């Protein structure tokens, strides 16, 4: 197993393993082996402008109970506590991921085979929902770009699309057509290749709970949460921009890009401020969820009001 830290990951996004406990045990149990522990221990725990090993006082980790008990995962119900109640019917193993489209290594992969080459790492990201609430979450995963590199997309590829499981056996509630299942999300290739974009398999040092999108989900920390597809069963490489599920459901409310942007309001509510779960009062929302210095250049010259 390769132990390395991509040089372009800003240290701000990485917490020290001692930020919480129980992770070593987990890693061992998961069979990731000592290599990962060593790798993450080698990662400087410093957050920008803070002493090493100290968390940014503005960004305290959102407790596990909230991260795993307050979810939007409509396949398991529309109330925030529905997924935690209902997602036990999801079976995250064995799991197949179909890779298709403009890609050399198109195939049906067993998830464990697909994950084998990658070194899992911890990333603490702010998570901003389009509904104007937010969390700070210690995800566990690997950069999507590493996976894409292995799958060898052709030069025609401009977009990557992620499809969520839609199985009435495991998700009885999808019989109600609240959204146009299966849930589909997509990224432009440069967004997908950005080092912040993360394939996630765990949270808080534990395997991803079903309600958080087990066994494999996407996290794009500068975009609204709905861009991060959960329980991914298909990755498709495309020449043309596909439509994403929420955009189909309400095109004037949810766009393709969905970058966190306090300057562009949702038609029904303001995006200027957000409630950090665990806090009573709202705080200012940051452009690109505070990751502007790393991602704003992806959109230079674009009208972000039109491309919301």
């Amino acid at each position, binding site marked *: 197993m390769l132990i390395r830290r991509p040089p372009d990951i800003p240290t701000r996004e990485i917490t020290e393993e001692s930020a919480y406990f129980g992770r070593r045990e987990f890693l061992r149990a998961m069979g990731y082996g000592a290599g990962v522990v060593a790798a993450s221990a080698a990662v400087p725990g410093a957050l920008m402008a803070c002493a090493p090993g100290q968390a940014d006082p503005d960004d305290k980790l959102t407790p596990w109970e909230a991260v795993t008990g307050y979810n939007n995962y409509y396949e398991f119900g529309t109330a*925030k506590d529905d997924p935690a109640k209902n997602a036990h019917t999801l079976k995250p193993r064995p799991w197949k991921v179909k890779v298709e489209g403009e890609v050399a290594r198109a195939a049906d992969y067993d998830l464990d085979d697909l994950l084998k080459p990658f070194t899992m790492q911890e990333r603490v990201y702010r998570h901003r929902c389009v509904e104007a609430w937010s969390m700070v979450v210690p995800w566990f995963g690997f950069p999507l770009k590493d996976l894409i590199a292995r799958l060898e997309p052709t030069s025609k590829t401009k977009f990557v699309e992620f499809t969520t499981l839609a199985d009435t056996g495991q998700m009885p509630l999808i019989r109600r057509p609240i959204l146009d299942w299966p849930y589909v999300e997509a990224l432009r290739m440069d967004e997908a290749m950005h080092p912040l974009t993360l394939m996630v398999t765990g949270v808080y040092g534990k395997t991803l709970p079903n309600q958080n999108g087990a066994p494999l989900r996407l996290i794009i920390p500068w975009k609204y949460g709905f861009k991060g597809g959960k329980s991914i069963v298909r990755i498709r490489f495309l020449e043309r921009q596909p439509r994403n599920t929420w955009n189909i459901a309400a095109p004037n409310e949810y766009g393709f890009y969905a970058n966190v942007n306090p300057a562009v309001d949702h038609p029904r509510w303001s995006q200027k401020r957000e409630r950090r779960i665990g806090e009573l009062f*709202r705080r200012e929302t940051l452009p690109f969820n505070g990751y502007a210095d790393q991602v704003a250049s992806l959109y230079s010259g674009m009208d972000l009001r039109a491309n919301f």
Partner: protein
Amino acid sequence: MLLLALIPALKLARGVAIGYLGIDPVETLAITTGTAAITLLLCSLAVTPLRRLTGWNELIRFRRLLGLMAFFYAVLHVSTYVVFDQEGSLSLIAADVYEHPWVLFGMMAFLMLIPLALTSTKGWIRRLGGKRWNRLHRLVYPAAIFAVLHFLLAVKLDVRKPVLYIVVLAVLLGTRVVWARRRAATQAPAARQRPAPLTAAEPGN
């Protein structure tokens, strides 16, 4: 009845007492109080049709209580919004109301409920006289309509609950229209001799 109507408030009070109101306490407050307010408002509107259907006149005694409890929850609901969502800032609230129709609808409903709650006492009924009091209290119809529209627009995609409330409200208002028509049809010839027998003690709407 009072106890039933107080259940949501007691639940919230318990939550405050034990220091846990769900993962997002502000959302819990807003949803619990909003749902209680609109439910009680529709219950208060169900009194008259139920009384007519069943002939059970005692029901009228609950109407004021239901209306006042609805208002009580509406006050809590709006306070939650003013304090936690907008931090008491009038300019933020004004901007929110101006930009978002569903907030405007909630505000309209709330503003209409205020005079109704204030004039709910016997003293006010006497002061206004049954007829004027009744006319004023017809405000409850647009208030309820604004409230269900507010509910409908507040939720995302899953509109089953607000649609249920809209259907119930439509039935409650519909029966009044039907009854009024029928009364007009049967009483039209006799209308001149018999003015509507509404007393101040028992105003009907």
